[in-house]
């Protein structure tokens, strides 16, 4: 037997509504040395649960109901806690989705690295730390000798994620489970982590489970891909085969989401809705976070504001809405100058500019019903109440493609992420705005759900001729919906123009790097990119 891991007929259950209910149904998989198996699906597909079950671990409130988990000849299902503890970390390890949350804030990064090997009795602290430095260097962490002695909060997200990959390797495990290791990262950092994953599995002859919701990402590292939905297997195949000939409809849907939409042209004479010139702002009072921001948004068009985290794109939204008053420059909205501060602005100006946020969970009051959420702007801006409000709320629900009878009385907490985001859109629509600022509105959602939201926004724009300012770090979204693209780096705009202008060469150097970093659905994409990079470095 040369399978490192064999899972057979695995069933997992979760405890909710007072009883144990199945969440993963009859999953079997195997993993050979040197192989990477990709697990892909939307949230709720059971990917992480299966990944953890491979370590004999079930989260609080979950349990492994039946099946067999054979790790290198050792059965983990039904093994004692102590036996499992010995295996975990040393034979099989785990890279969590959020490195920032998974590092203990009270201990230095390198101490957390050396903890497992020392605890498992494999080496002493000094040896472990020496190896850590070596691995940090291999994963291109800056300043590898010293970086480990920092606390987790002193590292950036991308650095922490790589430090976590290093930590997973600390005991030289046979298998590493990667659970969405790049989801929280910028595209440029994502490449470093993907390259690290490839290096570990290929050069060190280890095996890996790679869990993600992004097919383009998993296509770069996995030899085989397993598509999951609602805890059930959809299909499993060799990566190239799966991409070329998907058998199931669901797989095809996942493959199709990155298609481009028709272009809308921008004419010089179209009404300018928002025109900001030479705007700068500061949080500290002496250091500008953004500077020299010039931006126009025209009626019925979508401007995408793109940049990595920390580039200042959300700050621009705060300046436009007045939450962070600009220190110089002008903000013209619908032809007239807006006061810089939010509290100096008129109610009608506020109404015409609405926002939709990244986290629909926190943007909605959990104690309110859908009726109250959408009814509030109706009453606040237009004084509509009672029967008239009820009719308008129903109309709006129809606009966002939710059945009014079914949804109007529900609490916001009873909705799914995508439904919540739709309610946020309806709330913005209720004010009948001219401009909606969308701040990373799809990044907290699953791929297909996000696709639905983008579709909806597009339809609404066609119907009402609203303008959107779309803030995002996801270039796939940009390609899908933008008419004009503005690229930001370190608080400044580096390039802006119509979509086809920006997306076709020649690019600004940074735009080029950003575009080149977006994974394509081609399994050779990462290899080609790394090769190209290596050759340019030499």
């Amino acid at each position, binding site marked *: 037997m040369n399978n490192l891991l064999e899972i057979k007929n695995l069933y997992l259950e979760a405890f909710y509504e007072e009883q144990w209910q199945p969440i993963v149904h009859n999953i079997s998989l195997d993993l050979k040395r040197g192989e990477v198996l990709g697990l892909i699906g939307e949230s709720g597909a059971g990917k992480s649960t299966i990944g*953890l079950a491979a*370590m004999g*671990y079930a*989260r*609080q409130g979950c349990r492994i109901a039946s099946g067999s988990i054979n790790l290198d000849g050792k059965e983990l299902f039904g093994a004692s806690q102590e036996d*499992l*503890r*010995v*295996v*975990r*970390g*040393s034979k099989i*390890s*785990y890279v*969590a989705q*959020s490195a920032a*949350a*998974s*590092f*203990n*804030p*009270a*201990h230095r990064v390198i101490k957390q690295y050396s*903890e*497992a090997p020392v*605890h*498992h009795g494999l080496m002493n602290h000094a040896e472990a730390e020496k190896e850590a430095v070596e691995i940090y260097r291999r994963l291109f962490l800056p300043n590898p000798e010293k970086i480990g002695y920092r*606390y987790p*909060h*002193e590292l950036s997200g991308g650095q922490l994620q790589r430090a976590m990959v290093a*930590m997973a390797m600390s005991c030289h495990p046979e298998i590493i489970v990667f659970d969405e290791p790049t989801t929280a990262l910028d595209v440029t950092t994502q490449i470093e982590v993907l390259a690290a994953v490839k290096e570990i599995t290929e050069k060190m002859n280890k095996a890996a489970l790679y869990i993600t919701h992004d097919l383009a990402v998993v296509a770069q590292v996995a030899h085989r891909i397993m598509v999951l939905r609602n805890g059930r297997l959809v299909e499993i195949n060799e990566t190239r085969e799966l991409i070329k000939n998907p058998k199931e409809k669901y797989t095809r849907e996942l493959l199709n989401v990155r298609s481009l939409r028709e272009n809308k042209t921008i004419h010089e004479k179209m009404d300018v809705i928002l025109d900001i010139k030479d705007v700068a702002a500061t949080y500290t009072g002496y250091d500008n976070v953004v500077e020299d921001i010039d931006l126009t948004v025209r009626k019925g068009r979508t401007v995408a504001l793109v940049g990595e985290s920390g580039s200042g794109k959300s700050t621009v939204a705060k300046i436009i809405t007045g939450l962070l008053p600009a220190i110089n420059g002008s903000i013209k909205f619908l032809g007239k100058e807006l006061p810089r501060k939010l509290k100096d602005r008129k109610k009608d100006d506020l109404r015409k500019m609405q926002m939709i946020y990244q986290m629909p969970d926190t943007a909605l009051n959990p104690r309110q019903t859908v009726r109250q959420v959408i009814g509030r702007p109706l009453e606040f801006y237009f004084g509509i109440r009672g029967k008239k409000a009820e009719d308008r709320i129903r109309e709006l629900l129809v606009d966002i493609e939710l059945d009014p009878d079914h949804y109007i009385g529900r609490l916001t907490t009873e909705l799914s992420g995508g439904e919540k985001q739709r309610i946020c859109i309806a709330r913005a629509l209720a004010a009948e705005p001219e401009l909606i600022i969308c701040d990373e509105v799809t990044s907290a959602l699953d791929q297909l759900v996000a696709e639905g939201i983008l579709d909806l926004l597009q339809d609404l724009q066609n119907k009402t001729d609203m303008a959107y300012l779309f803030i995002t770090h996801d270039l796939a979204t940009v390609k899908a919906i933008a008419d004009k693209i503005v690229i930001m780096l370190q608080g400044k705009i580096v390039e802006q123009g119509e979509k086809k202008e920006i997306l076709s060469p020649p690019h600004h150097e940074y735009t080029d790097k950003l575009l080149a970093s977006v994974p394509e659905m081609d399994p050779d994409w990462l290899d080609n990119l790394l090769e190209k990079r290596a050759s340019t470095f030499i």
Partner: protein
Amino acid sequence: MKNVLMLIFKRCGASLITIFIISLIIFIGVEMLPGDVAETVLGQGATPETVEQFRKALKLDLPPHIRYGAWLNDFVHGDFGNSLANGRPVAGLIGWRLGNTLFLALSTAMIAIPLALILGMIAAFYRNTFFDKLISTTTLSFISFPEFFIAYILISLLSVKFNIFPSLAVIDPEMGLGSRIYAIVLPSLTLTFVVTAHMMRQTRAAIINVLASAYIEMAEIKGIRRLRIIALHAFPNSLSPVINVIAVNMAYLIVGVVIVEVVFVYPGLGQLLVDSVAKRDLPVVQASGLVFSVVYIFLNLAADILSMLSNPRLRQSQI
């Protein structure tokens, strides 16, 4: 590090201001007490002239704000004035008793704090088991009894029935450390029972709160033993709420133990305060009130600074 020093500096400044405000409140409060010191001290038979003279001697005839200024000035210079009841300097009166109070509080804390932390960790470790419930029930029962009740039970058991420890915690300045400790075993034990539950439950709750974090799951997945996870991964991250509860309990041990002092006839500051209020010995009341406030504020300040230092993020914060 510079930021932390700045922050600590600011907190100290805020504490000084608080103490100043409290000194005002104490002074005004004492001013508003009904009755007149001179008349009380001299008794019913005093002639108006003697009362007038007495008032003059004590500077009670001056307007309040001048007396307040003088009092505060003296207090800052360590001169707490003289007792009205017996004319002895207040500083000496309070000094010895404050020492006794601190001695009792610290001895209790040295048993109660480690005990509470360890019990809290064990309870979190055995969460929702019989053992956890046993610890919770026991400590909660002790917190629910009045202190004097626990004190009398202990006396009747350990000193009347078995005669191991003295029922009266009488100490004097000449006693050695050993015999002093022996004398305060029962009051100390009583107080331990009273304060442990609170601290232990906070420790348990704070740890259990942290146990839901992603980094605890990570530690489990790394194959770390449960006990190590609780002590080294969860506990350091739950320090901040625990430190605050410890500070509140320490303050209680110093400021709020009058009843236990009375039961065991222990010469602490609380008993002095109560006696002085009864005797209208205002300088003593004011001085001990202010000493209590300073102790209380100092403990809270220490808790703030410690919980700040226990968190690496705050240690290097940009505030």
